[in-house]
């Protein structure tokens, strides 16, 4: 049984922020959770999927975030408590629904988790989604720790029902992926079937209805502001003539900085957890009591701008600073030492910052990087190789719009097969624009899950407008990058997964794609021949590369392939495999002048390289492999 379903009230557990959110939702009696997997929110879906197999919790990995939000909205309209989780950029996809759902409102409590990613650990941008709360006019809570994540999730459901609007729970990677003690409450039962009561003049957003709905939304915001004024999540600690206003995990760094600098008696700390609408009276009163204020918040000056506006309203002229030269940056994640330095500088106290040791200087030589790489046995690499060699044989340069998934690692040498990327699904549509503008040979790459997420409309567009490019769908049967979640086209799925299989081939054909190739990328001759045909044809063409994610297939089956391969002859000057393929199991003995070898522990036994290099041959199992 999931450990999130066990334990009695008052017990303390070590939970990941994401697990704490799930536990909070379960204690609130959440009936439905929807999501599209995305780091740093992925574990919310993973845990809920497991729980949905063990309880009557309804859960789905929706095809994209907009769909996830709308499925949740429908259920909420029938009285269910619902949670919808996504990474920050997922909320862009769901934004169309979000903006008007704020007008429509909710019946059962609805919590939308937006997991932001300062420092872009695994994202394409580091946008600050607190502005979505402001843009949509919705209440927002911002936890700093797993304990708060649970408490705020629970509170957010009640708040949502009280105000009849969705509540945004805005986290950052450091909150999602920190484990900390969480005090358990009682699990709540789920309510059973809901019921949809017709009320079209409140629920159908035509202009006349929406004009009134907007009035209601503004009234809900006023109510929310009043609740923020007295919320337990907005806490003042310490005393003194100076102030710090902070939110999120940055608040933990600020609190530690005050302790370590001995400033708790000089600086009042206002840690905000209810951050939209801002509690203007609480903040105004705080500002009135101090002579200068430092705002400690990651990313954009959201609180800082709000505080300056409140100070203006109250006629206060104190110094309010946050972002700027010598202070905080709008870039990247903060850390305790950085916050301590800025706090010390701003309040003019001494800080004993350690002089950091620089490993490269101490060693007097550079340290090699350790870039992430596609796994040994990854089907994406095999397909990339076929396209690379086909283009080389044809003497044509390829332009490669790419997409979001493991295969984005094709950017790195030696593959170097990623030329343009914006967001999920952009490979297909940007390929159309590039080919239209240039007539160059455009080969777009998209993964199976991303194809269902947002590649479909772009492919319909390409068929309809007769665009001229080759789309390679890298179908490894799962959503690999985020931890192997299922999607509509899955061929590899967790045991007992109930979803209906929607084969990509059938979808692509049904969209009107007439030039279609389906290959197993590990059958080199066939995939190379098909790729050449597809490259030389014109119009919209789709090549589907079908082979399961090796890592996940192995995990599901519990078996390792036993075949292994080794280089049996001297390679001479040839470095084709290193220059074009780049399998992590291959290495050069004794530096760059050495002979190529294959690491028997790392070799996955995919038998791909052996098909194009006559120096590589199978070796006996010889006690290796089987586990």
């Amino acid at each position, binding site marked *: 049984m999931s450990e999130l379903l066990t334990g009695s009230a008052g017990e*303390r557990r*070590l939970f990941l922020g994401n697990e704490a959110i799930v536990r909070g939702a379960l204690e609130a009696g959440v009936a439905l959770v929807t999501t599209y997997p995305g*780091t*740093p929110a992925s*574990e919310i879906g993973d845990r809920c999927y497991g729980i949905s197999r063990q309880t009557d919790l309804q859960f789905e990995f929706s095809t994209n975030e907009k769909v996830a939000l709308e499925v949740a909205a429908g259920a909420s309209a029938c009285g269910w408590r619902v949670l919808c989780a996504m990474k920050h950029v997922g909320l862009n996809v769901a934004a169309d629904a979000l903006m008007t759902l704020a007008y429509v409102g909710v019946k059962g409590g609805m919590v939308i988790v937006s997991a932001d990613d300062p420092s872009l*650990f*695994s994202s394409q941008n580091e946008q600050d989604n607190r502005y979505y709360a402001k843009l949509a006019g919705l209440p927002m809570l911002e936890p*700093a*720790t797993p*304990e*708060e994540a649970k*408490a705020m999730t*629970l*509170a957010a459901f*009640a*708040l949502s029902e009280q105000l009849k609007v969705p509540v945004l729970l805005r986290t950052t990677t*450091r909150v999602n*992926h*920190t*484990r900390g*003690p969480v*005090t358990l409450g009682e699990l709540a039962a789920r309510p059973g079937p809901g019921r949809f009561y017709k009320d079209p003049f409140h629920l159908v957003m035509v202009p006349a209805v929406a004009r009134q709905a907007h009035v209601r939304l503004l009234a809900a915001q006023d109510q929310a502001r009043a*609740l923020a004024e*007295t*919320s*337990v999540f907005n806490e003042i600690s310490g005393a003194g003539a100076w102030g710090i206003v902070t939110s999120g*995990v940055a*608040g*933990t*760094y600020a*609190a*530690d900085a005050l302790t370590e600098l001995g400033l708790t008696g000089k600086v009042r700390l206002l840690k905000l957890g209810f951050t939209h609408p801002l509690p203007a009276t609480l903040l105004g009163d705080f500002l009135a009591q101090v002579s200068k204020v430092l705002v400690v918040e990651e990313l954009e000056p959201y609180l800082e701008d709000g505080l300056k506006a409140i100070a203006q309203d109250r006629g206060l002229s104190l110094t309010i600073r946050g972002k700027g030269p010598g202070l905080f940056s709008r870039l990247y994640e903060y*850390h*305790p*030492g950085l916050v301590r330095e800025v706090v010390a500088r701003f309040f003019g106290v001494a800080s004993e*910052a*350690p*002089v*950091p*040791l620089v*490993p490269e200087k101490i060693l007097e*030589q*550079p*340290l*090699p*990087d*350790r*870039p*992430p*790489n*596609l*796994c040994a046995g990854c089907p994406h690499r095999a397909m990339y190789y076929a396209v690379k060699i086909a283009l080389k044989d044809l003497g044509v340069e390829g332009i490669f719009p790419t997409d979001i998934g493991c295969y984005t*690692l094709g950017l790195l040498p030696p593959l170097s097969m990623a030329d343009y990327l914006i967001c999920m699904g952009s490979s297909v549509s940007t390929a159309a624009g590039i080919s239209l503008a240039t007539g160059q040979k455009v080969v777009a790459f998209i993964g199976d899950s991303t194809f269902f997420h947002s590649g479909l409309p772009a492919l319909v567009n390409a068929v309809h407008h007769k665009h001229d490019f080759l789309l390679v769908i890298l179908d490894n049967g799962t959503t690999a*990058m985020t931890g192997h979640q299922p999607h509509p086209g899955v061929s590899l799925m967790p045991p007992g997964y109930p979803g209906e299989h929607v084969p990509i081939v059938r979808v692509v054909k049904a969209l009107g794609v007439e030039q279609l190739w389906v290959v197993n990328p590990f059958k080199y001759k066939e995939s190379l021949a098909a790729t050449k045909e597809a490259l030389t044809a014109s119009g919209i063409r789709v090549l589907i590369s079908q082979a399961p994610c090796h890592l996940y297939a192995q995990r599901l089956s519990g078996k390792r392939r036993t075949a292994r391969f080794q280089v049996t002859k001297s390679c001479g000057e040839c470095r084709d495999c*290193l220059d074009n393929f*780049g399998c*992590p199991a291959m290495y*050069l003995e004794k*530096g*760059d002048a050495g002979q190529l070898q294959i690491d028997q522990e790392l070799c996955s036994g995919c038998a791909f390289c052996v098909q194009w290099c006559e120096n590589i041959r199978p070796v006996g199992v010889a006690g290796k492999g089987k586990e």
Partner: protein
Amino acid sequence: MALTQNPEPKTQNPKENLRIFLTGVGGQGTLLASRLLGEAALAAGYNPMVSETHGMAQRGGIVVSTVILGDLQSPLISAGEADIVLGFEALEAFRALDRCHAKTLVIANTATQVPYPVAIGQARYPSVAQMFQRLAAQVGALLAFDAGALAHKSGSPLAVNMVLLGALAATDSLPIPAQDILSVICTRTKEKFLASNLQAFDLGAAAARDPGNWQRR
């Protein structure tokens, strides 16, 4: 739940602050090690904060995690502020020198995992002996040994994390008794790995008791 209710009882921990930094390569079990330390600390009455790397970095990249004990709220460790470093791989242990201060205890695996740029001859893997010699000159103490070999010896090559936890527990630098860590290992590891994990833990503890593995300033 009413919005005005206090969200959590705050346990005060006036105990000494301790910042532990774990670093290794994807697949080496750093996350399990930090989680087990956190669980043991929680059982011992601490308010541990454990931060983890997930996502893109796990595809053969560097994976770091932190365990923080004491009267601290921050889940991260800034440069120069780790009291203990657990290095799961030689190069990564050395790279974590930027987290160290003059009193840091570094426990490092001397076994290497060659990064891809080195494997294909585009970069050079530094001499392990030289790295550890320079490292030892900067920190409080270095305990270095081949944890990979000990993991193999335990019957589970993936048990490098257990070897290092065993070594850490045997150094007496933790406020948590070794027995608490062992009992968390017993409840958190799969039945079929339990015997080898416990053996790996013991082998790590034995390595820590061998003065030949230590370099102190």
